[in-house]
C-alpha cells in the first residue's frame, strides 16, 4: 500500500521529514508501552497534537456518564489513544499561501471533520483527528512548508504579528521579516526546550493600534526607529511578562530600544533565563509573567543581559538582516482605484467594514469574516482560488479569527466581493460588534466550562439582525468570549468580555458567564477589563443589549466604552446586571439548566485535565527518551539486516544519552561527537560520578570504545553487540541522572541552579 511518506520523499525539508519520522517511532514506542505516557504526552503536544474533550473516556450524555469503550492504550495521562483529538497547525505571523490553504483543506476533509478553524493566535486547528493519522498529516503539511512543531506544549508557540504588517498606513516599519526570523530561530532551539510553560511572542508595527496585542504576551516587540549619529536605526520597544489566563498581567518594559541585531540574541537569552529560573512544579505559576513579577523587571533585565554576554555567538542572530530591507510581497494585480465600477447589492456595507486601504496607493486589504473562526474545507479551497486570482500569496490569518487578503487592487473589489458571495464568505461586519471572537469552549476543549461558541453564535445572530439599526459607537465595540477563566477567547481585552463559569442552584449546575467590561485592545492591549458579576448564560444576550443601550444613552460626547465603564463605575454596572442574575427553579424554566446549542442538562462533570501544556518534562528526560528511540530504531535496522545503519544509530543513541547528562553541567556543549565524549569523560567518568551506581563506569567504556574504534566491517554480531551496549549505557545514564536528582545536584529543568540576585558569571 502506498504511503504519504514514500510519495512525499524529497518534497519535504529533510529536518522536518526526520522530525516526523521520529514522532512516528515515538508513537510506536508508546503503543508498545516502551515510552512513558507523560513523556509521550509532552512529545505529542510539541507536535501540536492536543487532547480534546471526552478523551479521558467519559462523557455525560445528559442522563448519565457514558464510558467510551475505546482501547485502553493511552497517549497521555487519562487520555485514550483512540479518542479524537485536535491538531494545531502553526502559521507564523499568520502568513499562508493558496497552495497551503489547498493542503489544509485536503487534510480537514481526510483526517478531520471537513472544517478549518482559525484561532485567536493565528493558528489553524483541525478537530476530531485520530492520532494515527497525524504523521501523514504532518508530512503533507511539511511538503508545503508548514510545521506543527511546538504548536502546543511547554514551548515557543506561534509567533504572531499584525496582519496589516507591511501595508499598514500607521506602522513604523514592516515587522514581518523579524517575526519570521524569530519564529524560525526559536523553533526547536535547544534553549527553548526546558520551559515550565508555554511562551508566546507577538510583533506589532506601531504602539497605538490593537493588532499586535503585545502587552498580553510573554514577549512583545513593537517597531521603533531611532536616529543615531544622523542615521536611522531600526529596533524594538521590548516588553516581557505579559499574559492573560486566570491572572492577567500587563507586560513590563524591558528595553525602550532594542536594536534589531539584538532581537534574536535577547530572545534567546530570555528563553535561557526562563528555562532556568521559571517555575517548574506549579503549572499555575509557571508562565514567565510570574517570574518577572517575583524577581522584578530590573533584576530580570540584569540576569538576561548577563546571560546575553556569555552566550556563544550565532551567525543566525544577524544573518537574516541583510534581506530585511529587500523583503517585499508581490501583488497579483496592478493597482487601480475603485471608480465607476458597477457595485453589487450589499457591496457598500461590506466595503465599509471589510476593506482597509493600504498605504500603497490603489491597493487594499480585504477581511474575509469567518463566523466563529470556521470555514468548510470546500470554502478554504475556493478561497485559495479567489486569492490566486486577486491577491496571490498575500494571505494572513488574524487574531480576530478571520482571514485577510492583501494587495487587492481596489478596482477588483466588486468582482472579489461577487466571488466571496458565491462561496459564502461575504459577511460584512469585520471588526465590529457582530464579529464575535470565541475560544472552542465546551465544544471541544477539555477545560471548557460553558459554551463560548454557542453564546457567540447567539449574540452574533441577534446583533446581525439589527446591525444597521445599531448606533455607530456600538458597532465599533468588540465582544470576546472564553469558555473558562483561562482566557483563550481573550475576554480581558474586549469592550464586552465573558468567560464561562458554573453555579449550583438547588443541587443543579447552571451555566454562567462572568461579565468583564472595559478592556482595551488599542495600544496593543493596553488595559484589562473589570469583572462585574456572574450572569446565567441564557441571559447574556440581554445583558449585551442593556449595556450597549445604556452606553448610547449616557455616552458623554465621543467617550469610549472604556471611559464610560470607568465613569459609571463598577457598583452601578453591577446594579444593572443584578436583575439578570436570578435563576428560576428547574421546574419553572429548565432552559437555564442547559447551555446554548446543547440540549443536555448542563454538567461540569466532563471537565478534564488541561493539556494547554503537558506535564513538565525536563530536557534530560527528553534527551534520554530520544536516545531510547534511537536504540529502538537501531534494533529495527538490525532485524532488517542493515548492520551499518544499526551500528550508526546505536552509536548515535549513546551520544544522545551522553549529551543529556553533559548538558546538565555544560549547557552549550558543542553537538559534535568528540566534544560530547570528551566532556562526558571529564565530567562523569573521570570523576566517577557515573560509576557510583550499577558499575556505570563499565558501561561508559562502551561509548568510548565505539567512539575511538569504529568498526571496519559491519557484521550481525558486531551490530547486535553495539545495540545491547547502547541500551546498557542509556540505563547507566538514567541511573546516574536519578542519583543526581535525588541528591539535588540537578534541578528539574535539568540544569544546575543559578542564584538569583547576584551577578552572573
Amino acid at each position, binding site marked *: 500500500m*502506498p504511503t504519504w511518506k514514500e*510519495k512525499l520523499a524529497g518534497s519535504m525539508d529533510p529536518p522536518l521529514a526526520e522530525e516526523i519520522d521520529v514522532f512516528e517511532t515515538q508513537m510506536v514506542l508508546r503503543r508498545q508501552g516502551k515510552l512513558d505516557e507523560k513523556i509521550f504526552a509532552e512529545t505529542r503536544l510539541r507536535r501540536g497534537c492536543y487532547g480534546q474533550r471526552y478523551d479521558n473516556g467519559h462523557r455525560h450524555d*445528559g442522563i448519565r456518564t457514558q464510558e*467510551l469503550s475505546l482501547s485502553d492504550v493511552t497517549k497521555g495521562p487519562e487520555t485514550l489513544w483512540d479518542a479524537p483529538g485536535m491538531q494545531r497547525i502553526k502559521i507564523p505571523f499568520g502568513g499562508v499561501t493558496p497552495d497551503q490553504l489547498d493542503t489544509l483543506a485536503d487534510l480537514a*476533509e*481526510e483526517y478531520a*471533520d*471537513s472544517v478549518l478553524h482559525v484561532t485567536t493566535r493565528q493558528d489553524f486547528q483541525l478537530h476530531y483527528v485520530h492520532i494515527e493519522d497525524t504523521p501523514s498529516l504532518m508530512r503533507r503539511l511539511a511538503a508545503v512548508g508548514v510545521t506543527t512543531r511546538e504548536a502546543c506544549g511547554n514551548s515557543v508557540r506561534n509567533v504572531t504579528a499584525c496582519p496589516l504588517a507591511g501595508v499598514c498606513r500607521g506602522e513604523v516599519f514592516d515587522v514581518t521579516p523579524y517575526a519570521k526570523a524569530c519564529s524560525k530561530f526559536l523553533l526547536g532551539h535547544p534553549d527553548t526546550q526546558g520551559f515550565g510553560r508555554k511562551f508566546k511572542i507577538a510583533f506589532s508595527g506601531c504602539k497605538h493600534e490593537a493588532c499586535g496585542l503585545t502587552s498580553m504576551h510573554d514577549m512583545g516587540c513593537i517597531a521603533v526607529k531611532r536616529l543615531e549619529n544622523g542615521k536611522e536605526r531600526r529596533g524594538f520597544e521590548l516588553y516581557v511578562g505579559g499574559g492573560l489566563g486566570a491572572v492577567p498581567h500587563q507586560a513590563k518594559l524591558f528595553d525602550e530600544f532594542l536594536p534589531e541585531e539584538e532581537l534574536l540574541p535577547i530572545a534567546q537569552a530570555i528563553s535561557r533565563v526562563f528555562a532556568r529560573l521559571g517555575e517548574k512544579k506549579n503549572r499555575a505559576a509557571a508562565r514567565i509573567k510570574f517570574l518577572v513579577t517575583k524577581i522584578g523587571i530590573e533584576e530580570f533585565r540584569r540576569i538576561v543581559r548577563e546571560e546575553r554576554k556569555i552566550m556563544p555567538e550565532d551567525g543566525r542572530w544577524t544573518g537574516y538582516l541583510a534581506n530585511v530591507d529587500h523583503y517585499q510581497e508581490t501583488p497579483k494585480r496592478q493597482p487601480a482605484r475603485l471608480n465607476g465600477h458597477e457595485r453589487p447589492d450589499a457591496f457598500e456595507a461590506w466595503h465599509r467594514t471589510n476593506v482597509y486601504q493600504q498605504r500603497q496607493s490603489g491597493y487594499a486589504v480585504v477581511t474575509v469574516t469567518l*463566523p466563529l473562526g470556521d470555514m468548510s474545507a470546500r470554502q478554504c479551497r475556493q478561497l485559495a482560488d479567489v486569492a490566486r486570482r486577486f491577491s496571490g500569496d498575500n494571505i494572513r490569518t488574524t487574531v480576530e479569527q478571520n482571514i485577510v487578503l492583501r494587495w487587492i487592487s481596489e478596482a477588483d473589489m466588486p468582482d472579489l466581493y461577487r466571488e466571496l458571495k458565491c462561496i459564502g464568505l461575504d459577511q460584512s461586519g469585520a471588526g465590529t460588534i457582530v464579529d464575535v471572537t470565541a475560544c472552542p469552549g465546551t465544544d471541544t476543549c477539555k477545560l471548557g466550562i460553558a459554551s463560548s461558541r454557542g453564546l457567540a453564535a447567539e449574540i452574533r445572530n441577534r446583533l446581525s439582525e439589527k446591525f444597521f439599526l445599531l448606533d455607530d459607537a456600538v458597532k465599533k465595540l468588540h465582544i470576546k468570549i472564553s469558555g473558562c477563566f483561562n482566557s483563550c477567547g481573550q475576554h480581558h481585552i474586549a469592550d464586552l468580555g465573558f468567560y464561562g463559569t458554573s453555579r449550583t442552584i438547588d443541587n443543579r449546575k447552571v451555566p454562567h458567564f462572568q461579565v468583564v467590561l472595559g478592556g482595551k485592545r488599542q495600544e496593543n492591549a493596553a488595559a484589562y477589563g473589570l469583572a462585574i458579576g456572574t450572569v446565567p448564560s441564557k441571559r447574556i444576550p440581554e445583558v449585551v443589549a442593556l449595556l450597549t443601550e445604556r452606553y448610547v444613552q449616557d455616552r458623554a460626547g465621543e467617550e469610549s466604552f472604556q471611559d464610560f465603564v470607568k465613569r459609571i463605575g463598577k457598583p452601578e454596572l453591577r446594579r444593572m446586571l443584578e436583575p439578570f442574575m436570578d435563576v428560576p427553579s428547574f421546574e419553572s424554566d429548565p432552559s437555564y439548566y442547559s447551555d446554548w*446549542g446543547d440540549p443536555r442538562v448542563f454538567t461540569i462533570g466532563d471537565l478534564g485535565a488541561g493539556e494547554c501544556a503537558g506535564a513538565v518534562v525536563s530536557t534530560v528526560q527528553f534527551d534520554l527518551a530520544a536516545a531510547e528511540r534511537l536504540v529502538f530504531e537501531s534494533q529495527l535496522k538490525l532485524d532488517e539486516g542493515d548492520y551499518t545503519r544499526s551500528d550508526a544509530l546505536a552509536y548515535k543513541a549513546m551520544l544522545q544519552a551522553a549529551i543529556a547528562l553533559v548538558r546538565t553541567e555544560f549547557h552549550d556543549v558543542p553537538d559534535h561527537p568528540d566534544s560530547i565524549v570528551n566532556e562526558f569523560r571529564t565530567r562523569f567518568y573521570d570523576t566517577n560520578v557515573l560509576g557510583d551506581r550499577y558499575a556505570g563506569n563499565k558501561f561508559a567504556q562502551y561509548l568510548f570504545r565505539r567512539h575511538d574504534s569504529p568498526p571496519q566491517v559491519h557484521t550481525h554480531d558486531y551490530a547486535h553487540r553495539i545495540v545491547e551496549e547502547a541500551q546498557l549505557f542509556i540505563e547507566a545514564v538514567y541511573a546516574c541522572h536519578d542519583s543526581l536528582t535525588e541528591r539535588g545536584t540537578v534541578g528539574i529543568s535539568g540544569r544546575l541552579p543559578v542564584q538569583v540576585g547576584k551577578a552572573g558569571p
Partner: protein
Amino acid sequence: MDLYRLGIKFFAAGGERIQPAELIPIFHEWIQKQAFENHLLIDVHNYSHIREGPGILLVAHQGNFSIDMTDDRMGLLYYRKQPVETLTEIIKPAIEGCRLLENDPRVRDCLRFHTDEVLIVSNDRLLAPNNDETFSTLEPQLSSALNQVLGKTFKLSRISDDPKERLTIRAQA
C-alpha cells in the same frame, strides 16, 4: 480492503422545512441510546453557521454522520474513518441514519430520503486519486455493494475530473 475512507450521501426531500438546530437533540438522543450497531457515538457539533458546510455533525469513532448542505442539497452524509471488510459496511450505517431520522416524530413529517440517487466520495487522495483508473477500479465494487444493500441497479458516473477534488461518484438507480 485498503480503501475505507469513503463518504456516502443520501439526499433528503423536505429539508428546507427543518432548521438544522432541530437535529441537535435528536443526535444527542442517538448518543444516549448508542443507536447504531458497531458504532461508538461520541459527540455532536453544530456547524450550521458555515454555508453549505457539514451542518450538524454526529461524531463516532468508526465514522461521522452529518446533515450535509453542500450545493444547497440537504442530505445525510456518512464518512467512514475506520477500516472495513466490505463496502456494504459503509452504506449500511448511512441507510440506518436515514431510517432513524425518517422515523423520528420530530422531523418525520418533513424529511424523506431518496435511495435512487447516492453520492459517493472517496476521501483518500493517496489511495484513490480522482482519475479514470480509480473510478474504473471502484465502479464494480460500488455497484455491487449498492445493489446488495438497496436492491437496485445503479449507473455510476464521475462528477468532476479536477485532480484537486476528491473522486466523487454519482450513483443513480
